[in-house]
């Protein structure tokens, strides 16, 4: 594997005819950890959904490329196989399909027919990852996300991340609803992914997550655009002072998307 680059240029995205993103520019390379912060309603989750290809979001302008390949031309599953991953804020529940069965399908979708992962190897790998995430072993045989608590769902998203090993991962509010112990465990899983071959974009309201996963770059989103970028120190200042100083600096009265 080699370093990948996800490039987002002048991205405009609408949902039900309403424009949410109004020209986002961002580049994430293998080895880099980015954080996008910002108050509610500024377009953060829309960005992650648009990158993955959520059926409700329409890209009206701009481009997304992964190592030069046009992501917007790809179906959702093709984007995933190309190396993108989205840890979702609200993962779907799928009854009758076990977690293990689903994960194995995901792994095998990246392998040729006849070259499927051996069951033993798969189970060993899953067991190890589940141990690291302090998940009950019986969660492998439970139906996908069905009846999972909020924390279990988040751990399960990271279990998928660790199993699939994407090139670029987007983590959409992976910290929401987690208590401090769960947050530590989830962060441990994410940090384990750190390598030159793995780039990550974390979307969060709170600086808290960034105490455990240090970002290389921090971006602030307001009104559907990235309005300010900096290093880890930017997150610390936001934690200490909130968002008002940025609004004042940029002359923004209402940070939400209008």
């Amino acid at each position, binding site marked *: 594997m080699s370093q990948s680059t996800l490039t987002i240029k002048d991205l405009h995205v609408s949902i039900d005819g309403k424009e949410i993103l109004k020209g986002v520019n961002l580049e994430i390379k293998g080895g880099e950890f980015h954080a996008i912060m910002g108050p509610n309603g500024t377009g953060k989750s829309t960005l992650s959904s648009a990158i993955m*290809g959520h059926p409700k979001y329409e890209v009206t302008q701009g481009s997304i490329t992964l190592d030069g390949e046009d992501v917007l031309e790809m179906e959702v599953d093709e984007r*995933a196989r190309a190396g993108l991953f989205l840890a979702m804020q609200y993962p779907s529940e*799928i009854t009758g399909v076990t977690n293990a069965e689903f994960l194995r399908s995901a792994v095998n979708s990246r392998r040729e027919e006849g070259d499927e992962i051996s069951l033993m190897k798969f189970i060993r790998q899953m067991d190890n990852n589940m141990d690291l995430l302090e998940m009950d072993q019986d969660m492998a045989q439970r139906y996908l996300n069905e009846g999972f608590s909020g924390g279990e769902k988040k751990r399960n998203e990271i279990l998928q991340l660790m199993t699939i090993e994407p090139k670029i991962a987007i983590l959409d509010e992976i910290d929401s609803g987690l208590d401090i112990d769960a947050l530590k465990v989830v962060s441990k899983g994410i940090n384990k992914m750190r390598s030159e071959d793995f780039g990550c974009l974390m979307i969060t309201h709170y600086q808290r997550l960034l105490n455990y996963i240090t970002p290389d770059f921090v971006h602030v989103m307001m009104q559907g655009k990235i309005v300010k970028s900096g290093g880890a120190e930017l997150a610390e200042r936001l934690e200490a002072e909130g968002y008002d100083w940025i609004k004042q600096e940029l002359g923004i009265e209402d940070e939400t998307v209008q």
Partner: protein
Amino acid sequence: MTETKWSVDEAAIREFSAANNEPAWLLNARLDAFSKAEDLPLPKPDKTKIDKWNFTEFGAHHVQSAPFKSFSELPEAAQAVIGEESSTQNVYVQRNNTPSILNISDELKEAGVIFTDFATAAKEHSEVFQKFFMQQVVKADEHKLTALHAALVNGGVFLYVPKNVEITEPIQAVFIHDDAQAALFNHVVVAADANSKITYVENYISTVKTEQGVANIVTEVIAGDNAQVSYGAVDTLAENVTTYVNRRGITSPNARIDWSLGIMNDGNTVSENVTNLIGDGSFADTKMVVVGRGKQSMNFTTKVVHFGKHTEGYILKHGVMKDEAKSIFNGIGKIEHGASKSNAEQESRVLMLSEKARGDANPILLIDEDDVTAGHAASVGRVDPLQLYYLMSRGITKQEAERLVIHGFLAPVVNNLPIENVKKQLTGVIERKVRQ
């Protein structure tokens, strides 16, 4: 009423009956039913119009097929459902209308079990067979299709289990349809005497395409005092075969009938599955899975009627409709006056995979007694695009994602089927039907 076009006449029935050396009672039953068939109305399955369906025109009333001589000659699909050949196997194979293979273990023979094809049952077990054939459970004059069935019956099996005989290994019947001209008028009688216990599994397999085919199938299950019958069926009849299938049972006190039905036909199908809980303390459980595809239209009526006190009836049906398939799921729990302390429960769920697929679930409870419990649940819905998005976002193709969702939707029924063999078969059949 328009005149029905018949593919057979009375002379043909007489000729067929004579050729099989049938006893007089059976010929008379045929002729009597045939004379009524013209005037009797079609059944009226709720919410499906079947008056234009073809139940009467087919290539030939009976075809002579070369019997299969061994398992290795059987088509692959049949071998797959039978599994490894073994000396303890009890299996009947019918090729179109011709009895082919009949294996019955010495153990069963010694226990007095009768397991034989329809013609042999009528000929060699005439007296006992006559007691069961369209007498107690299904009557010839109920409607046009039962009358036609009685008049034209040309295959099937008779299984009789004497008192106190318990058989753990499933007894299997495989009906192979590999002649486009053949019409299947199969009759199955499963009679379990007091305190007996059996599992019967049947498969309908089409390996041929036909322009115009008819299957008119009637099953009668008679569960004696405290008897337990587990009845499994996996139907995979071809497109353009119009199927009427009526599987009905009656229970004596404390008897139990479990139905495990997988209806995977590719043609228009009317399926009726009724259990009449006559005896006090008797029990019925119906589990059914269905996959529809293409332009087929299907109607499934599942009904449990409680006559006895302390009777329990459970219905669980899940169906998936693809393409332009249509299906109606009627579930009826009926508690007659006097059937106190009874319980009627049902659940029907339909998942539609495409814009043009149609499904409807009608739960009906008819209760004439105060001291009872009953419940129903029904849902009809389309596949959730967000579920597909979630699965696909992990690299899973759309086709595989749909397969997982369907598999998951049917799992609560399939995983709980009481017959292991049927569970295994159905998993394979569903996979094939969903993939294409």
